[in-house]
């Protein structure tokens, strides 16, 4: 059982590890690391490919199976954490 804060940290790590989108903007990185801030996938530059790679990472590294649709329905790091916390 993982809580929202832990899931948010995992998601943020997944964003940093994404092989097709690297985040370099300091302001974005700061918000990504801030547990109380939201950080949208669109502003992170996520496209379909980036969403797929993120989903793959979540499954391989943490056993959390999600589809691309979840990132569209819950379009930010915090929103997705909240969604997964409800689901888990």
């Amino acid at each position, binding site marked *: 059982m993982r809580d929202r804060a832990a899931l948010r940290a995992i998601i943020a790590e997944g964003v940093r590890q994404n*092989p097709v989108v690297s985040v370099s903007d300091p302001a974005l990185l700061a918000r990504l690391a801030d547990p109380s801030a939201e950080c949208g996938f669109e502003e992170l530059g996520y496209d379909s*490919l980036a969403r*797929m*790679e993120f*989903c*793959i*990472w979540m*499954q*391989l*590294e943490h*056993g959390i*199976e*999600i*589809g*691309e649709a979840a990132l569209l329905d819950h379009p930010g790091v915090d929103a997705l954490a909240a969604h997964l916390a409800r689901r888990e």
Partner: protein
Amino acid sequence: MTEAAPVLTRIEAVARRIPDNPALLRDGTPIAYGALLRQVHGMAGQLARGGIAPGDAVGITVGDVVGHIVVSLALMRLGCRQVSLPPSDPAPLRDALARRLGLVAVVGEAAAEARGGAALLRPDFDAAAAGRDAAHAPPVGRGTMVFSTSGTTGRPKLMLAEEPVVTHKADMLAGFGRVFLHAPSFDGHHSRRLTVRSLLTGGTEVLTGTLPARDLARLVARFGVQRLHLAPPALAALPDGLDGAAWPPGTRILTTGTRVPQAVRLQAQARLGCALHVIYGTTEVGLVSIAGPDDHGRHPDSAGQVLPGVEAEVTGEDGQPLPPGEEGLLRFRSAGAVRGYVDDPEADARFFDDGWFRPGDVGRVLPGGELLVAGRADDRMTLGIIKIFPAEIEAAAEGFPELRDCAAFAVPSGALGDIPVLAVVAGDGFDAAALLAHCRARLGLRAPRKVVVLAALPRNASGKVVRRDLVALLRTEGE
């Protein structure tokens, strides 16, 4: 002598032409063509006197390799249907085989070897060599060999190989070297097929048991072996096994398998200093192509030019031919192909179609006739809409520093399909992240998404990686 003549008529003609040339060499002792064919003639007469008639199905359990060859050729001369029944196979398997083929007799040494109600015939090789019963031999007939696929699951698939199948591409093989040796790890029927093709072309077969690499090198040098047939695992072990000893120059090594890892090929060629040729084909369809160093240099997936007389076609999943150069399911037609399986309509329907054989491999035929084999259709992964073969991932990874062995496999994902992952066995200082980046740069979206380091890859008895077990290992590692 026309190709239409029975095989034994043709081999007997070779023996009249070069009676003193060695047909077989065992432990340094030559067995000349004249002597061998006299013994075969005598054995045919002996078996005929023992009640064997043309068209009968007969098993062979003779353990001695020369004895086995003599009996096999004698049965071919008689026009019989023959099958090898190795005593090492489980008795129930041999019983079932004997019944399915309706064996009337088994040629062997011990009563226990006569299975499924067949009579036992004990061969007298000295009498045969003396030509005692030669007069009983009927005119030369046309034999059939029964090939069987390894029946790891369920019952083995059986095929009837008539003479054109057994002798297919004999001249071409002879062109790779007339003095040949093949490691005994090959199936029995593969061995006999090579023997017959060698005898048809006046070649010499060097017979040996399993030898350490250094002894093999000495044997090859001593008898001037030009062509060596090795299974991929034996080939992979050869350079290290030599332990610094030189490999005799001028040999050609032929190996087989859908895909011999590029690293193994390059290492063998560099360290042995000899050309390596990879045969593509199956028991059902025979030789399709042979890829040599030049072919591999052009494309690592090359299986070589499709051989003359062999037709290769690529179809879609619906069985309809695709335009030249497109990737799809491969199918082949050849004079070296069997017509189907013995009483197995289900397998016939799956693998044979109107004279074509579909091995279940995916690939392309380039306009010039070069065959590229991507891998087994069953192994293909689908990530989203991207199709990925384990073989292309493994090929991209091979040669990476400190990588000893690797196998790609799929982690199933409900939302995404198959996620490609690479299991590796690696040495000290191996950098998994660097390998991931290396693969990504070469393969893009078809790259593995994770590298799992294992102490060893799970392999089955025949050396194939069990990809299913890799998924389980990854799950265990994640917990």
